[in-house]
């Protein structure tokens, strides 16, 4: 009897499942897959790319914008002016309104930047504002920021996620209900499930955004993401898929696949302060021993670009140095012998499976390095452990990084700066490099700065503080008739302002 009842219940449930699906979603809504839920929506408190992926350019914007080509363009400031490269005057666009209806004024800029400079507010990138000495509000639409010294990256810093402009009165709710000037307003955040954005009808760029509603759904497992795309439950995945899924979805006519450039450089970092990697011969031998095209083929199915230094292809000063130190195992062996390791050595590679590519790249590298006598033992560690022990994040009180080798993608643009910091976990300490880098930081003339950057890249190739493997590609899969998606990703964001459906 009970089983008959059970059969009935099951039949009912499945019958309910057969109900015709609710009318197809309106064409002006979009469902976006996100792999991780943001740890909070305050970009002035967290550097998490999951936060920027939702908020940056969609809910909040900055004075300057990094556009889809990686160029700095005027945004909330319609123009700026400097005569001495130390005092920057920004002229704000008039009639820009925050989501609470109030107009954006120069006093907001002053408040926001001063708050970022205050160490008590736990801004994730305090160093970006270190050179600022004063912020002067001239009138409601004019503000001057004074610097201690010339800073070639100042405008870039003003364009980054941590420099978004929000209204002073909304500072306490940035974490859960951020307000800004962006094309969308935050409608709802259902913790653990989804974030819904709604069109901002008052947006200061006429005709935008094209979508009425955007839903971010959190799906972590890449296989589940693939299934959700195929089942039509999500329309686009910006960051959630690996190359193997992209290869499969490429065959499906319902989807478009975008493989673009990013600023994410995947590197094999070596602890330069620790034997045997304190010897430049060993570091160069490591570079010669690695067959980068094979690594790219094996780990990324050939998608992405091979790197020669730590400057990514989206950087204006990028020089292709991918073949400067060619694959040459015989030379690697010779260099190792010269360094006193004729039979190679044993070493440990620490990777965190939080980033899928680190483990598989490590396995290929271990195999290649074995051929020159370097025996790599792969150790997988949890991400926070990686940050504390390997990356040696200062906030944890770490003094010396504990690692031989590690693999990680460095996603920040212009992160060649890290090689000028001898305290960075590479522990690369070259006075020559540091001096030239400091010079480049205050050089504003483009041609001179380009030359300096070329020299910096050459220096890196010579000293081989790390092995630069490949640029992690941007892998986007979207429904065929979705337009306006950025091809490349010069900045960590998923700008949806121009995204829309064609008929």
């Amino acid at each position, binding site marked *: 009897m009970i089983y008959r009842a059970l059969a009935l219940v099951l039949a009912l449930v499945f019958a309910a499942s057969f109900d015709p699906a609710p009318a197809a979603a309106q064409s002006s809504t979009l469902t976006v897959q996100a792999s991780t839920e943001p740890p*909070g929506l305050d970009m002035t408190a967290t550097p998490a790319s999951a936060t920027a992926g939702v908020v940056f350019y969609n809910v909040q914007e900055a004075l300057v914008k990094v556009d889809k080509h990686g160029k700095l363009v005027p945004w909330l400031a319609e123009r700026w002016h400097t005569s001495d490269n130390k005092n920057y005057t920004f002229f704000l666009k008039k009639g820009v309104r925050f989501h609470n209806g109030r107009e954006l004024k120069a006093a907001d800029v002053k408040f926001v930047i001063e708050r970022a400079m205050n160490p008590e507010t736990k801004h994730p990138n*305090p160093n970006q504002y270190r050179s600022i000495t004063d912020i002067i509000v001239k009138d409601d639409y004019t503000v001057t920021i004074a610097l201690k010294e010339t800073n070639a990256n100042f405008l870039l810093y003003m364009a980054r996620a941590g420099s978004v402009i929000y209204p002073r009165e909304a500072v306490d709710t940035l974490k*859960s209900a951020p307000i800004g000037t962006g094309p969308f307003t935050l409608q709802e955040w259902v913790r*653990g499930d989804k974030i819904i954005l709604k069109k901002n009808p008052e947006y200061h760029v006429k005709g935008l955004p094209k979508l009425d509603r955007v839903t971010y759904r959190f*799906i972590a497992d890449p296989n589940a993401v693939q299934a959700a795309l195929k*089942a039509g439950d999500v329309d686009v995945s910006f960051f959630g898929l690996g190359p193997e899924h992209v290869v499969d979805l490429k065959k499906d006519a319902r989807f478009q696949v975008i493989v673009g450039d990013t600023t994410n450089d995947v590197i094999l970092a070596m602890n330069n302060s620790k034997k045997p990697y304190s010897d430049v011969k060993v570091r160069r031998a490591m570079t010669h021993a690695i067959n980068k095209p094979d690594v790219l083929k094996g780990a990324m199915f050939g998608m992405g670009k091979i790197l020669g230094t730590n400057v990514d292809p989206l950087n204006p000063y990028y020089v292709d140095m991918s073949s400067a130190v060619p694959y040459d195992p015989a030379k690697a062996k010779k260099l190792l012998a010269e360094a006193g390791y004729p039979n190679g050595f044993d070493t440990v590679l620490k990777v965190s499976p939080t980033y899928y590519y680190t483990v598989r790249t490590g396995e290929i590298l271990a195999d290649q390095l074995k051929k020159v006598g370097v025996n790599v033992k792969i150790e997988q560690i949890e991400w926070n*452990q990686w940050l504390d022990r390997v990356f040696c994040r200062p*906030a*944890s009180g770490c003094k010396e990084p504990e690692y031989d080798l590690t693999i990680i993608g460095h996603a920040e643009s212009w992160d060649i700066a890290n090689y000028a910091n001898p305290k960075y976990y590479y522990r690369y300490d070259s006075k020559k490099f540091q001096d030239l880098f400091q010079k480049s930081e205050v050089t504003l003339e483009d041609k001179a700065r380009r030359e300096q950057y070329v020299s910096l890249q050459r220096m890196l190739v010579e000293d081989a503080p790390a092995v630069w493997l490949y640029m992690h590609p941007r892998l986007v899969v979207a429904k065929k008739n979705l337009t306006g998606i950025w091809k490349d990703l010069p900045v960590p964001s998923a700008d949806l302002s121009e995204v829309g459906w064609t008929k």
Partner: protein
Amino acid sequence: MRRYVLRRVAAFVATLFFVSALVFIVIRILPGDPAAVIMGTEGSPEAAARLREAMGLNRPLLVQYADWLTRALRGDLGTSIQYDVPVGRLIVTRLPVTLPLMLLAAFFMVFVALPLGIFAATRHRRLGDYVTMVISQLGIAVPSFWAGLLLILLFSVRLGWVQSGGFAGWDEGFWPALRSLLLPAIALGFFQAAVLIRATRSAVLDVLREDYVRTARAKGVREALVVVKHTFRNAMIPVVTVAGLQLGQLIAGSIILESVFALPGLGRLALNAITARDLPVVQGVTLFVASSIVAINFAVDLAYAMLDPRIRYD
């Protein structure tokens, strides 16, 4: 009976105390303390130290634990570091997903395992038995997250009957909400049933060898009646024990399945909280789950007396 209940309550409190202390210590020993996680990669040691001070992380572990415990006893589980929301409220908002998922999965588990187990026992060493055992072996071998993916591929990608993941929410109506829990409940329940099938089979086999079963058969009682009335009820004690343990397994399995099916349940809350070192949330969820498991075990113990009147609690 009263002494028994008192003893159980004391054990219950002791278990919760032990579990909460263990979690508290373990999560503190892990590298990456909450202050360092909040400060990110560029924060200075000085700023992190100030934050640690403000969050009270500088005090001795014992003091911190005592502080947490006194608050928890008053019903205050603290505030989530990452969401800025009271932990109690977070747990309550996740329950409408996890609880029905558990119940549905348990329902599938029991209603698959019991009949199949009995069926296998009555066909002992015959084809039906072997087939059932092979099915059960498969169920034990197949990890539930993989089974979940296969179910998604079949029912939502191929057939398009249900959503591939996510939770519709109960305010969307009963059926849409239930439908989004169907596949994960099947993945959890059917595959947890595998162990229960074996337990049921061997328990029933044992009882089938009893004298009174032979007597019943000799009297000419119908075989169906012999199995259901004389055998099954007497075989229930080991079955209920295993089922109770399996319920605990269901809770553990839900952590993975909630990720595969993108369900906003307790398991995912706990997983994210561990990654973000959101201590109050980890503590709160662990305490809640531990209480539930202890409560289930208690219920199982009480069920023994109902099944076998000879069992007395004193």
